[in-house]
């Protein structure tokens, strides 16, 4: 494993960004009022749950293929919110997973979500299923589940690869309302083509802040936005100034 090379810009940049995000969290915890713009894909979550309830059919939530990782944590956090909404209407949430560690986490989160939603008895342990660790065996398992259970709403959040379109197109043919979000940039076009709503890029990590409206999480998102503006300014500035900056500074910036 590599170590940080402090003679380059990268570790300094990571710490600078971390401090900015930390300041955002601090400001929010001190009471600074923060606003987050509307995300139509997240607004549609309630609509999707409502539609599944009206149709009397279950909801499918796929947390991607990754192991225990930051995107998977986010996916499971979103699954908790979806399950909390579903619990209010006593609607089932099916959650197939491809990793056994994720299985235990997902089962616990959904169990708690149903309890918080006021319907602990509506949670069925068999609705959180470990299908397979193999990518396409998992995909075919999910497709079979969608068809057998005639799901009314699909949520695809997490890391996906080639199976993304297989899942989303099957949901499309079933007429399910579909919401997706992924940090896998190559899969974003497939989800945009096949899903009703897609969360793109940094929005993926802002979903829990948007849903909970917790001040600390909003502060983190605010800090991230400041980081992005700073990075854009840095790129623009160095592009313009590269002819005037000393070569030693340019070497440092290039790493």
């Amino acid at each position, binding site marked *: *494993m590599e170590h940080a090379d402090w003679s380059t810009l990268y570790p300094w940049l990571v710490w600078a960004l971390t401090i900015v*995000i930390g300041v955002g969290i601090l400001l929010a915890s001190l009471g600074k009022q923060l606003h987050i713009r509307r995300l139509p894909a997240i607004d549609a979550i309630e609509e999707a749950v409502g539609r599944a309830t009206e149709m009397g059919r279950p909801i499918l939530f796929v947390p991607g293929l990754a*192991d225990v990782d930051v995107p998977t944590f986010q996916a499971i956090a979103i699954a908790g919110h979806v399950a909390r909404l579903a619990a209010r209407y006593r609607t089932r949430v099916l959650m197939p997973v491809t990793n056994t560690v994720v299985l235990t986490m997902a089962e616990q989160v959904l169990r708690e979500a149903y309890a918080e939603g006021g319907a602990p008895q509506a949670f069925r342990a*068999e609705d959180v299923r470990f299908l397979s660790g*193999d990518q396409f065996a998992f995909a075919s398992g999910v497709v079979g589940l969608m068809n057998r259970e005639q799901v009314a709403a699909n949520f695809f959040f997490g890391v996906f690869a080639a199976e993304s379109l297989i899942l989303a197109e099957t949901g499309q043919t079933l007429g399910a309302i579909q919401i997706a979000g992924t*940090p896998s940039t190559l899969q974003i076009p497939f989800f945009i083509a096949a899903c009703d709503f897609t969360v793109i890029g940094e929005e993926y990590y802002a979903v829990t802040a948007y849903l909970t409206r917790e001040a600390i999480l909003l502060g*983190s998102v605010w800090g991230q936005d400041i980081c992005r503006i700073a*990075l854009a300014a840095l790129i623009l500035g160095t592009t313009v100034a590269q002819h005037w900056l000393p070569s030693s500074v340019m070497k440092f910036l290039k790493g």
Partner: protein
Amino acid sequence: MFQPVQDGTINWLFIGGTLVVGGGLLALLHGFAPPVRRWVIAILTFLAGLYFALEFFMPRHNVLTPWRDSVADLLQVLAAFTFGLGVLNQFLIHGRNILHRTPNWPFSVAFFSGFLLMLGTGLLQHYAPHFLAAVPPQGAIGVLGFWEAAYRVLFEGALQALSATVFALLAFFIASAAYRAFRIRTLEAGLLMVTATIVMLANVPIGQQWLTGWIPEESPWAWLRLEKLAHWLQTQINAPTMRAILFGLWVGALGMALRIILGLERSFTIGRQ
């Protein structure tokens, strides 16, 4: 730091001891009241995150480095504990389907058949290749024993072929998704259609040679050649956009990681407050 144990007995003792200590710690954790448990998990998460961050950012071969691989192996150990839960989960769901004769119970029979067949064949070809089957003579080249051949038929002949079949379906799904995406109903869909057509044509002979191949390379209109247009679109429009998305994602991941380490993201680790 941790050298592999050479003595078999001591190795088994270590494994047994680890299971006992691990089970004891888990039982202890479950014995705590939920608020205490949440705090214990939050503190452990913070320490684990801090360890890897410090180890990475401190100079090479620092005081934390010798422990790095062992700490990273902890995740593998935890994953091994949960693997049994995954199999148990499958057995419970499919066993219940068969017992209650649910509408799709034959699929569950197929699951148990496949599971036992694959497990049995795999174990036999590795540990007991002589069991109820003749083995190839000594020195025979290219001749497989019965169980090894059976395992290969199941793994390469069935499982891999089935995986390839599911992957191949992707071609048809891409066609149907592309059809929907290319219907020109908005300005964005129109732009997508035009750019996609240019990139697709630039990658086939009909576009490169027939349609614009007649424009000389030295001509001031050479930029109209499809391969040059496609290259421009991919390097000047597509690549920067993808990089911008990646920038956003990595900053978002950094924020999320910070929230996890500091125990602020409570949706999955320590319950909502």
